[in-house]
């Protein structure tokens, strides 16, 4: 399945969610489940982790893997269904609380109309779900040029945020 980054550029493929990635995806030569990550690696295996990605379901508990995140190459967050918006918060928390600096990939069931939300919540790229086309996602990324909120979790600043950057208030 095609992977698009947040600029709408194609970025390799995710082959049936296999573990091995050739060519590497955002630096990850393998993408493993949460269970496999904990079984095969210690958080101190930083060299290996630098080439590893982990694929997380909505039910995986991040705090279980806290020690790994600063060293992992990428994290894939799988949407169980588009209505379940937990991965949006997971992405924000990954960046803020778990010092994760690598790429965050969205996979699973989501809609083209969520593409901008994904990138603004801090995702780096997404695996285009089978029932949609890359073209639909690319045009969805261009649907808005403005937003009311600052980009979250280190999201690329593709959009102008409304009005001035915040300053302290003494309202009333």
């Amino acid at each position: 399945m095609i992977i698009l980054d947040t600029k709408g550029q194609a970025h390799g493929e995710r082959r049936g969610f296999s573990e091995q990635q050739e060519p590497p995806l955002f630096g990850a030569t393998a993408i493993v489940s949460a269970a496999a990550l904990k079984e095969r690696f210690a958080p101190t295996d930083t060299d290996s982790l630098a080439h590893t990605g982990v694929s997380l379901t909505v039910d995986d508990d991040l705090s279980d893997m806290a020690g790994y995140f600063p060293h992992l190459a990428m994290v894939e967050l799988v949407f169980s269904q588009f209505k379940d918006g937990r991965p949006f918060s997971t992405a924000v928390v990954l960046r803020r609380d778990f010092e994760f600096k690598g790429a965050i990939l969205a996979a699973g069931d989501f809609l083209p109309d969520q593409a901008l939300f994904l990138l603004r919540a801090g995702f780096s790229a997404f695996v285009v779900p089978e029932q949609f086309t890359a073209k639909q996602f690319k045009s969805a990324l261009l649907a808005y040029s403005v937003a009311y909120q600052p980009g979250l979790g280190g999201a690329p600043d593709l959009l102008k945020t409304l009005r001035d950057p915040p300053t302290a208030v003494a309202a009333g």
Partner: protein
Amino acid sequence: MYTYDTLDKALLNQRVAEFREQVKRRIAGELTEDQFKPLRLMNGLYLQTHAYMLRVAVPYGTLSSDQMRKFAYIARTYDRGYGHFTTRQNIQFNWIELGSTPDILYDLSEVDLHAIQTSGNCIRNVTADPFAGAAADELDDPRVWSEIIRQWSTLHPEFSFLPRKFKIAVTGADADRAAIKFHDIGLKIVRNDAGDLGFQVFVGGGQGRTPFVAPLIRPFLPAKDILRYLDAALRVYNQHGRRDNIYKARIKILVDSLGADQFSLDVEREFEKLDPDLLAVNEKEVERIRDMFALPYLRPDTDAQAGLEQAMEQSNPLRRWCETNTEVHKVPGYAIATVSLKPVGGIPGDATADQMDTVADLADRYSLGEIRVTYTQNLVLPHVRVADLPLLWAALDQISLATANAGLVTDIIACPGLDYCTLANARSIPLAQRISERFADLDAQHNIGPLDIRISGCINACGHHHAGHIGILGVDKKGVELYQLTLGGQGNRDSAIGKILGPGFDEDGIIGAVENVIATYLNMRTIGETFSETLQRKGHSPFKERLYDHT
């Protein structure tokens, strides 16, 4: 009134263009109904029993006269000549063609109106005190803060796919005309001992299957931190709210299962982690918005009341209307006038295009061009000179909108029920009409005094029946429409959930039951005692005995 600047407009225009494209794809068959459904719902477009229904937001219940005229135009051009004001400060158009919806949204956008987030599991239209900016008992204008919350919550990247819908209400007055404790988050504007402006934060109120009055989880939140705190609360909810059972997905269930103290701790912990500057409310932005809501100078007129007294001497109907349908304004010599959308035997909340146009004209003439929409399904003209009340009343009377029943027994809140809604168990509107006809006599209504009847066609409680002095809930018992009666709800500062009185009634039976409840009250009340006060003093038993021993 808040008016959109170029940035607000850009976003709105892009939204309209996006939906036009989606509708085109749906009509061309490129999108299945399944794929289209979430997209149309994000634009407030429902498929009801007979047709598409478009729900348009009235932002925090405030409308300009031009916006009202646009509703009239839409009712006339795309619908059957009327609109329905809902129990959530929205308007619904019930007979819409799918192909027209992009044009409707475009027309609305010309006057800064939209249907964004009027459905779906996102942060909905913010509710505010309908008397905002006019009420004498107000500490600060809740619309300023509602607009800030509107902006922050519009197309929020993280909080548009929550476990369930999310409703925020703001009041700046002690009287609480926005029923904030029945919302997912209720915000009451307060000052602390140092005189700083801030909020009391209530979380986890709601109606539906499991009603709750929201507990207070933050006694004082500095105003500048409002978005940071909302962000924290919403993140806790988005991550931990239940998604396995639609009936347990609202934040009230999370707050109840964790306990208010634990929930509050979780939010505080998240709040502390957030960069205090990132979402700090910008002082300049607050002032920009505040300026737009500021009232022009209104000259106090302390003699006006005497003139009105004279006019009322001449006209008993005028007196009755002034007694029930007007409230004290913060400027002496001005009044807040309620335009009742509950004519005897009418459909609660319905207004024709002609009525909307006339109300818009009257707002221009008598109320600085401003109109409010209440969750009790009435309209309000917030800034009327006391001296103009007789003229306003006469003009409203000509279009059948001068019923002197605000807050009385025929000022019934009713959801659309079985006549429109696919989820309904029972009819609400015909029941409201029958009760209204039964108590049509205005003298009798005024004799009964303040009494709040609320009807929901199913447990989703869109008719707020839990919070009615008398609540009526449509239930389905083995294929038969029945109505359950609750007594003792309150939707104000002393929010309370009504208690079920006993087994349900059929349609004729429930009318008789309401009559009996009211007769029981009239028998027991002491001089000047309202229905609620009598109920509180005597408890439910006398009502129960009367109903179930005599029916």
